[in-house]
């Protein structure tokens, strides 16, 4: 399982790529593995306001369903339009083709509270 160093992670297993203006969000390799084959992804529309810690979307496998939570508050600037038709990208490429949304955060410094790779791996070990 891979957990790229350049990303931040949440307790609910989202990953976050923090850049100058926007942050990109998806679910971690651990999350996709736990869910199994993803069959459906529901994402918000561009312009939707999201709130840190609240669900913004849903990922489903055949027999499980999981909310995806916003790591930061802000406005959705872009969504991965490919995912609804090819939800398997969440499994095959969780950090790249499987990205979900880009948020323009209200306050970028909120990202400081997220976990780095090491802390996230410790978190996973604890959950197991």
């Amino acid at each position: 399982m891979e957990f790229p160093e350049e990303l931040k992670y949440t307790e609910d297993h989202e990953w976050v790529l923090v850049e100058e203006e926007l942050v990109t969000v998806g679910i971690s390799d651990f999350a996709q593995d736990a869910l199994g084959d993803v069959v459906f992804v529901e994402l918000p529309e561009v312009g939707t306001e999201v709130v840190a810690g609240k669900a913004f979307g849903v990922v489903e496998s055949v027999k499980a369903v999981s909310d995806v939570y916003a790591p930061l508050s802000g406005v959705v600037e872009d969504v991965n339009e490919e995912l609804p038709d090819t939800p398997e990208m969440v499994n095959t490429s969780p950090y790249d083709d499987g990205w979900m949304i880009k948020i323009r955060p209200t306050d970028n410094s909120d990202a400081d509270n997220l976990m780095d790779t090491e802390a996230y791996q410790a978190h996973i070990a604890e959950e197991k």
Partner: protein
Amino acid sequence: MRYLPHTPEDVAEMLSQIGVNSVEDLFVEIPEAVMLDRSMDLPEPLAEADLLREMRQLAGQNASVATHRSFLGGGAYNHFSPAAVDQLISRSEFYTAYTPYQPEISQGTLQAIFEFQTLICQLTGMDAANASMYDGASACAEAVLMAMRLTRRSKVLLSKALNPRYRETAATYCRYLGVQLEEIAVDGAGRTDMQDLVAKLDDATAAVVMGYPNYFGVVETLADVAEAAHGAGALLVTAVAEPVALGLLKSPGELGADIVVGDGQSFGLPLSFGGPYVGFFAARQKGLRAMPGRLVGETVDLDGKRGFVLTLATREQHIRREKATSNICSNQGLCALIATVYLSLLGKQGLRELADQNYAKAIYARERIGALEGFSLPFNSPAFNEFVVRCDAGVERLLETLQAQGILAGIPLDTDYPELQDCLLVCVTEQNTRRDIDELVDALAGGVS
């Protein structure tokens, strides 16, 4: 007891394997205080022959469509069911099977449901149908809730010409969900009043719900309603209590309905004093993931062979729990199988001919009754196999008189519609011969003279 196989020796050996002394020891976890310290007070058990005697005696106290000439409809219809229907659904591989959660040994049930879903789509003109709901009324209630999920609105307009029991059931399901239910008036032709509808439609309206045909048998002008509803961003929910009509009438889908529900009882199910019937539920593709109930889908097995599975289960209660699209679990699977067998036997031509016969017989009865002195037809619109009759002399005594002659002439409407005092809902199907109808007409004429 013939259903309990263990001999005393079996019990003794099993107890010893378990390592307890008596059957009572198996219940040690139940606190003494709640143990029942007496026998249950139930009637003495009956041998099979005695049971059948008692059941025949109970059965003998009821009027059925076999003992009486029946013109009762109102959401339950007396149609003929070919012998092959009951013979086939009596195969115990069908009726003693559980919900098909293990697809490898449930392909019979699964393929039949897939066929049921297809038949319902073909009849209603919709994209997707589920594996069944309890009945037409509860399916209608679930459709109201689905329309609210899809539109994120909370006001629903129910036509007053929709079956009153369907309206009551929808009100029950909506009771604590913050729904604003409003009724739309009936116009002079027995249709949903378009002016009232347009006046009540607004940008908070999730859905307009109509019967098709409606409770009075009248064929609603669905296309106009669909246009009005869609203009306000609302959905059109159509409830079909008498689906034989769909052999003849334009499908609700063709006329713009977004969700079509109804009851499949007419498709070979016995009247059975009101149940079990089979609710059907169909919708447009875009609403698929908001649908309630089980869905069967086609797929392949490891060898690439075609097979069927329950699918999109993440909508359902066993996975999504409090966020499920419905709490439904058991549905009316065997009843859906009855409808599937029945429709296979009738087929394309048979269903059309059956619908034509029902229509023609009702027209014949309606015209003859309408011509009688003291009787009139309040609604002069195209109707399917039911129609409203006004009896100037009142209905209560008339019905009793006819009952004494072995005729169940219709359902009085005044309880549900005070404005339809002295009115009867009369239903005629292919099961009523011309002679039955003529006798009804004569009895009606004689009953008021």
